[in-house]
C-alpha cells in the first residue's frame, strides 16, 4: 500500500507552467462550465481541453490512468440523473449532466497530474500572496502523509493482534474504523506538536520576511494559459448560443 503523490506525472510544457496559473485555468473552466445547463457548451469546452492537453504533452495514457475514476463516476451520475430527475428529455438531460461533470472535473484532474506540491506552495506564496506560514506548514504536514498511511495499516494489525477484528459484521467494521481514526489522530496531533517545535527552532516563527530558495516565475505563457481558459469558455458559450443550444443554469 503505497500512497504516492508524485506518480504518473507527464512531461511537457504543461508541467513546467506556473502552478497557480494552472490551478486558476482549471478553476475558470470548471466554474464557467458549471454555470451552464445545456450539453453543448460543456462538450465544446471538453473537446477544446482535450486537444490543448495533447498539445501540452499530457498523454492519453496518463489521463486514463488518473482519470478513470472520473469516467466511472460521471457515468454513474448520468445513470442517477435518469432515475431521479423528471424532465421531458431524460436521456438528453443525463447526457448533459455527464458531459458537464467531465468538462468541469477534467482540467482539475490534469492539473493535479502535472503539479508538484512543493512548487504549488512556493507559487502560492510568491505569486498569490498566500501567507508563508500556512503554505509551508501544510507542506510539512503533507510530508507525513505516507507515514500516516502506513500507520493506518499498522494500527489495524495491532488491533488484530489484540483480538479485535471485524469479520462480516458492519457495525464491527465501523467500530474498528472509528477506533483506528482515533488512534491515528492521537499520533497525528502529537507529531504535529513536535513538528511545530522543530520548525520554530529553525526560525519559522521569526518576524520579518523570508527569502526564497526556489523562485517561481510567472511567464507570459502562464498568463496566456489563464486567458486561454477564459477564451475557450467564451468561445464555447458563443458557439453554443449561435447554435441556439446555450442555456445558463438560472434559465
Amino acid at each position: 500500500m503505497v500512497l504516492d503523490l508524485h506518480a504518473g506525472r507527464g512531461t511537457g510544457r504543461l508541467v513546467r507552467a506556473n502552478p497557480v496559473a494552472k490551478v486558476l485555468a482549471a478553476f475558470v473552466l470548471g466554474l464557467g462550465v458549471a454555470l451552464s445547463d445545456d450539453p453543448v457548451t460543456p462538450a465544446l469546452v471538453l473537446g477544446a481541453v482535450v486537444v490543448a492537453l495533447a498539445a501540452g504533452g499530457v498523454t492519453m495514457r496518463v489521463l486514463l490512468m488518473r482519470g478513470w475514476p472520473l469516467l466511472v463516476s460521471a457515468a454513474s451520475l448520468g445513470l442517477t440523473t435518469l432515475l431521479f430527475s423528471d424532465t421531458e428529455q431524460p436521456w438528453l438531460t443525463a447526457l448533459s449532466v455527464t458531459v458537464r461533470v467531465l468538462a468541469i472535473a477534467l482540467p482539475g484532474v490534469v492539473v493535479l497530474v502535472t503539479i508538484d506540491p512543493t512548487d504549488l506552495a512556493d507559487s502560492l506564496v510568491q505569486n498569490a500572496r498566500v501567507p508563508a506560514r500556512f503554505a509551508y506548514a501544510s507542506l510539512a504536514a503533507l510530508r507525513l502523509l505516507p507515514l500516516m498511511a502506513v500507520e493506518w495499516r499498522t494500527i489495524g494489525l495491532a488491533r488484530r493482534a489484540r483480538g479485535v477484528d471485524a469479520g462480516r459484521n458492519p457495525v464491527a467494521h465501523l467500530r474498528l474504523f472509528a477506533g483506528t481514526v482515533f488512534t491515528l489522530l492521537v499520533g497525528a496531533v502529537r507529531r504535529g506538536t513536535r513538528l511545530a517545535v522543530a520548525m520554530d527552532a529553525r526560525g519559522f516563527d521569526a518576524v520579518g520576511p523570508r527569502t526564497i530558495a526556489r523562485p517561481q516565475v510567472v511567464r507570459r505563457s502562464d498568463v496566456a494559459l489563464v486567458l486561454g481558459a477564459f477564451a475557450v469558455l467564451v468561445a464555447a458559450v458563443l458557439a453554443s448560443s449561435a447554435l441556439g443550444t446555450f442555456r445558463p443554469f438560472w434559465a
Partner: protein
Amino acid sequence: MRGLDLTIEPGERVLLLGASGAGKSTLLTALAGILDLEHAGDAEGRLTVDGVHPRATRDRVGLVLQDPETQLVMARAGDDVAFGLENRAVPGPQIWHRVDAALDTVGFPYGRDRRTDRLSGGEQQRLALAGAFALSPRLLLLDEPTANLDPVGAGLVREAIAAIQRTTGATTVLVEHRVAEALELVDRVVVLTPGEGVIADGEPAEVFAAHGDALAASGVWVPDRPLPTRKARPAQPDASGGGREDLLVADRVGYTHKGGDRPALTGVSVRLRAGEALAVVGPNGSGKSTLATMLAGLAAPATGTVRATPRLAGSDSPVPPHRWRAHVLAARIGTVFQDPEHQFLTGRVRDELAFGPIRRGEKADAVGRRVDDLLDRLRLTSLAEANPFTLSGGEKRRLSVATALTPGPAVLILDEPTFGQDRRTWVELVDLLAAHRDSGGSIFAATHDEAVVASLADRVLTLGHDRPAPVPGREVAA
C-alpha cells in the same frame, strides 16, 4: 526541576544525564528559547545564553530532536536544509552553497533532490543535523538524537555530530541515553536529579566513579556496568525424547512488499519452541519486522508456510495463523508492537488489562482480581484509572506487554521491545519476558539491541546479506 545552577563556557561539550523527569529536555528547550512558558507552569530564576535571554539568541542556536520524521519539513533533502536558511532571511544566492556545504559536512549520501520519505532514520537525522549546521550555530543542542536509530545509523549520526563540532567549534549540550558511545563527543558530564538541580558535574570518569551506582539504579545507562543475564535453564529431555517442543514453524517463507524492488525475505526457516527465547538480528531492511509479522499471523507469506503445531493450536493446526480469527490469534500468539499506543483500545489502564479476559467471557470478579494482581506486579496500581495514553514511555511498554500476555498466549512476538528505554525499564522488561519464557512460553524478538541478545536470547537468528560464519548457538538464515 528546581534549584539548577549551571554554567557552560563557550566551546565546552557537555553531556546531560539524569533519570527521566529530571528536566533534561526542559532545559534544552529553554536554552533554545522556545520553551512555551504559557504551558510550562511556573518559572523562577534566570537563564541566559551569551548573557541575554534565550529568545534573543535563537538564531545562534541549533536544536536537533529525537524523532527524525517530525523534524523534516520539505519533500526533498536540499529544500529541507534550505528551509532554515529561508526562515533566517539568508539572501537567495547564498542559500544553495550553504546547503551543499552542510550536506557534505554531515556525510549525507545523496544529492539535493533525494526525497525525504525515502531516507532511513539515520539519513534523516543527518539531514536534520545539516539543517542545523547550515545556520552556523554557536550553540548546538541535541536531545537524544540517536534514540530512534539502529546502531549503524546511530554511529553515522555521531560521526556527523563530531564533524560539526570540529568545523564550528560550537558549544555542545547533548542528552543521550547511549552513554558509552556518546562519551567520545563530550568533555564534561552534568547529572540532574528530578526535583533538585545538578548533583554531579565533571569529567566522565570521575562522575561515574562517584555516582555510577545511583545513576544506574535510576535508569541511566552508565557504561561498563553489566546487565543481568536471563537465559533459560538447560532443557530436560521430555517424554518424546526431544528437547523443547515446537510451537510455531516457519518453512522457507518469503515476502516482497508492494512496490518494493527486492524481496524483504527469501527462504527463511525458523522454529519457535516452548521455554525458549529467540532473537532475530540483522541490519535495517533485512526483514526482521516482516518475519515477525508473518509469525504473528498478521500477514500471509508470499512463499513458504507458517504453521502452528497441535501443541499451540490444537485442531486448528493445519490452518495457517493468518487465517485465524483475531480473538483466537490473540489467545495463542501475542504480539507487542513498536509503538504501544497502536494497541490501546480503552480509556483506562484497568480496562486495558481486563479487555482480553472479558472478551472471552470470564466472570467480572475473577477478572477484577487478575487485573489487580497484574497491576501490582507491573507497579501500575496507582495508575489503574489513568488514560493509557498519558503514561510514560516505560509504563506504556510494560502495559502493552501485559495486555499481550493476558489472553494467555504461549508465543510472544516483539518488534524492537527495548527501543529508547532507560536502564530500569529495560531490566524490568527483560524480567517480564524471562518470566514468560520460564513458565513454558516462547519468545521471538526482532531487535537491534545486542544487550537483549546477550542477556535473554537462548538462540539467535541472523538475517541480512553480510552473514557471519556459523557460531554454536547462533543460527544463520539458510
